[in-house]
Structure formats: C-alpha cells, structure tokens
C-alpha cells in the first residue's frame, strides 16, 4: 500500500490508514517549529501557494497561512469579494489564471461539495481541500485525530461521539472517515432532522439522547450549530436545542469520569456547548487550534515534494 500522499489532499475518505498515520507522524515534529523563537524553516522556500477562500473563514485561513509562512512558502490570499469571481469568472478560469502565474499549490474553500475535486482534475498544481460544501474538511479531521491521539496515545478502540448537525457538517464526515480508518469507535448524536438518512451506512452508532452519548463516549466532538438551521426548520429554537442536546456541566458530571471536549469552532456558547464546558479542565479546544497549524504544515510538506514516488527510495539513501 502506498505511503505517500499523491498530488492532492481532497478528503480523508480516499486515504489509507497508512497515509493518515504518515500525516499525523509528520505533524509531530512540526509542533516544535511553532515553539521556536524563529518560527520558520526553509522547507518550502520558493514555492508559491494561493489560498482561494470562496467562503468566509478565519481560523482555517489563518491556520493555513501560518503553516505556509512557517515553511517559508510565498502566499497570496484570494477571496470571492473584491476579486474577479464577483464579476462572474468561473472557478476553473480563476485557477487557470493563477496557474499561468506559475503557482505551486492551491488551498481551496468553497461552498459547493466537490469543488476541490473539480479543480484538482483540471490544474496541475497541488490542491488542498480546506472545506467543500457539506462534503469534507480533511485538515480539520486530521487535527482532530492528532488531538485525540495526543491525549489517548492511540485512536484504536477509543470511543468518540460527534454531536450536533451531522447532516450539514463536512467536519463530521472527515472525522467519521478518519476515525474509523484509525480504528476508533465512532458514534453520532443529534436531532433526527440533522442526521443523514443513510447514517447507518457509515458504520457508526447513533444515539438519540445526549445523556446516552455522554455515558458511552470518552471524547465528544461538538459541532457548531449553524444558526441558519433554525430558519431552515431543522430545529424549533436555539433554546430548545440547548435544552435537549446542549453539552452542559451537569450532564457531563453525571458520567462520573472525564470526557474529552472538542469543538471545531467557532462556538455558539450556550447553544451546543456551555461556557464552563468549553473552558473546563477537559476541554482541548485550543489544543485543536495549535495542532491545526502542525497538521497543515505536515500536509504542505508531504505534498510539496513534487515527486513523492521517490520519497521511499530516498529513505534508504546514504547521502550525507
């Protein structure tokens, strides 16, 4: 089985267990780079990376940008507002124009599922999916895996429950693929209206009540409840959602043992998660953010090699 990544990172579904482990293992030493006084190594010097964010994002965009800069790549940020996208230019035309300026990589966030795939098939640059519609958000999935592995030592047979709006969540999909491939036990919990109809096919446990989920889980990954879901008629009200599915201190206390708390952000405090849980002693929410930079550095580094088929051969080389 191949241990390299290939040209693009589009999702965790197409990756093998070995490839995911390679990324997580590579992320490990990159953590230390961000702790240095000079937070920069020359690994990607001379490479040009375009961050193409067609959808609002703060955390992911900044995290990618830090990762790129700490590897010494040159970066350009393109958003949809104020660019020719607003004038009706298609995604492919935008990308081809960028490629004509001799770039090496594109990091893309887009509201359409499959946008990253579409692009990857049409340009020669490496493409990294930074979230496409409700499909996948692979680097978020990877940083969640890394955070869990940091905490538990291994992912094997660890019980992780994803809580909330699984239906619309690319984070949930990437987590489910990644966790199951790494041997974790995965559950989901949320209102029936916000779980995919075919959820059983993902091979996950489904909890109808948050109390049962907490009873079972060693870690909860609490998804952001997108406030527009209320208008969509998926839930009656935010208060009602918090009353039934909110992760509160009282509910966690009843478990009688620590449950690790994760959240991809941005949080709606008092809706899907209470403040004292988000800031509590078992919360690793900020560790997730720290790990995000390391994981993205690892992905950039592994994809930047250009000729990954040679990487394994190089391992045995005696060059010094």
């Amino acid at each position, binding site marked *: 089985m191949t241990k390299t990544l290939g040209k693009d990172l589009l999702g965790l579904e197409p990756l093998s267990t070995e490839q995911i482990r390679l990324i997580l293992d590579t992320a490990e030493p990159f953590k230390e780079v961000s702790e240095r006084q000079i937070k920069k190594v020359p*690994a990607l010097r001379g490479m040009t990376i375009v961050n193409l964010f067609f959808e609002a994002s703060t955390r992911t965009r900044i995290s990618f940008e830090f990762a790129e800069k700490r590897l010494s790549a040159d970066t350009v940020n393109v958003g949809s507002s104020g660019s020719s996208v607003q004038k009706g230019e298609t995604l492919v035309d935008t990308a081809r124009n960028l490629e004509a300026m001799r770039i090496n990589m594109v990091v893309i966030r887009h509201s359409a599922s499959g946008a990253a795939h579409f692009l990857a098939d049409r340009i020669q640059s490496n493409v990294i999916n930074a979230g496409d519609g409700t499909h996948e958000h692979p680097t978020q999935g990877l940083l969640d895996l890394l955070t869990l592995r940091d905490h538990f030592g291994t992912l094997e047979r660890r019980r992780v429950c994803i809580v909330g709006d699984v239906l619309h969540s690319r984070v949930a999909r990437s987590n489910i693929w990644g966790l199951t491939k790494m041997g974790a036990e995965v559950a989901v919990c949320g209102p029936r209206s916000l779980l995919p109809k075919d959820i059983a096919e993902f091979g996950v446990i489904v909890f109808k009540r948050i109390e049962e989920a907490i009873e079972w889980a060693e870690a909860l990954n609490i998804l952001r409840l997108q406030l527009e879901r209320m208008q969509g008629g998926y839930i009656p009200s935010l208060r009602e959602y918090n009353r039934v599915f909110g992760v509160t201190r009282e509910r966690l206390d009843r478990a009688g043992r620590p449950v690790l708390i994760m959240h991809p952000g941005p949080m709606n405090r008092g809706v899907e998660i209470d403040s004292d849980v988000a800031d509590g002693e078992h919360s690793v929410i900020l560790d997730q953010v720290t790990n995000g930079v390391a994981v993205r550095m690892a992905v950039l580094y592994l994809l930047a*090699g250009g*000729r990954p088929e040679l990487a394994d051969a*190089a391992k045995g080389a005696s060059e*010094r």
Partner: protein
Amino acid sequence: MPPKNSVVLDARAVDRALKRMADEIVELHNGTDDLIIVGIQRRGVQLAARIADAIREREKVDVPRGALDITLYRDDLQTVGPRPVVGPTDLPWNLEGRHVVIIDDVLYTGRTVRAALDELADFGRPARIALAVLVDRGGRELPIHADIVGKKIEVASTDRVDVLVEELDGKDAVVVVPRDEGA
C-alpha cells in the same frame, strides 16, 4: 551472491574513537566553558550522548546537549521528495556566545552539515561552531571540513557507510556496505 559487508570499526574501536574525540573537543576549546554538544538526528544524537558521558568522566562536568533534525533545511525536497522527519529538534539553550560542537555519524557530501549550520543560525549566534564526526568518508560537494574525526576511510562512491549504535541497532559498529549489483 551479494558482496560482503566489511566492519571498519567494531564496538571497542568505536568506544576508543569517541573517547578520543571527547578529549580533542575539550582540548580544542581549552576546557568545557560555554561548550554545547549538538547531535544531528538520528545517530549523531546517540554519539553526542556518548561523547558527553566521556567528558563527564574525565572532566567532572555536565556539558549541555541538544539535538538537531535538519530534514526541513535540506535542499532536495523538490528533487528527491519529502523525507521522513525523524526526530525532534531540541535546543533549549541560548546559543549566544556559546561554543557549539556539531556531532554527526558520517561526513560525506557536506550537505547535512550545511543544513545544520543554517538551522543553528535560526537559533542564535554562537561564538564558534565546530564539527566532529565519527567517520569521514570523503566525497565532499561543499567547502566543509570536520575539526575532529574519529576515523577517516576511503570507499567507493557507490558504497554505503553505516554507523550502528547500540540504542537503535543493538550494537556499536561502523560498516561499509557495498552496493548490491542487483539493487
């Protein structure tokens, strides 16, 4: 039949070479003041530990030690592809004004040392940087030389020189591995 490996240094010879290198390091720096020993990942790290032990035995001083992974400072990512980043860089010392000794197992093209010098520069400005290697096999591609050498050998450019250390390989030795014709 594959060609035979030949042992250049056995465990006792490795031990003698490292002890002599430790003495030479102390001599070169007129003592151990301001000295920091930095091993290059991987096997340079174990060799650096042995040298520090030898200095402690002789001089009764604990010389600070660090580790350097130079993978991210290599100049061949685009041509060779990504290599596994093998171990952490661990340099918890202020290098300002210190005397740094880089320890590596084999000196060959000099490219690893070039990368190590670049990386050290990102951590501070030592008063002096010296290079000590267990084996110098020649074949330099850069103007770099070692200040202290355990053993100088001449081998064909197709041969591989492996340094084995007990911590990772179960025994100490330096072995020349001829390239298998079939490989």
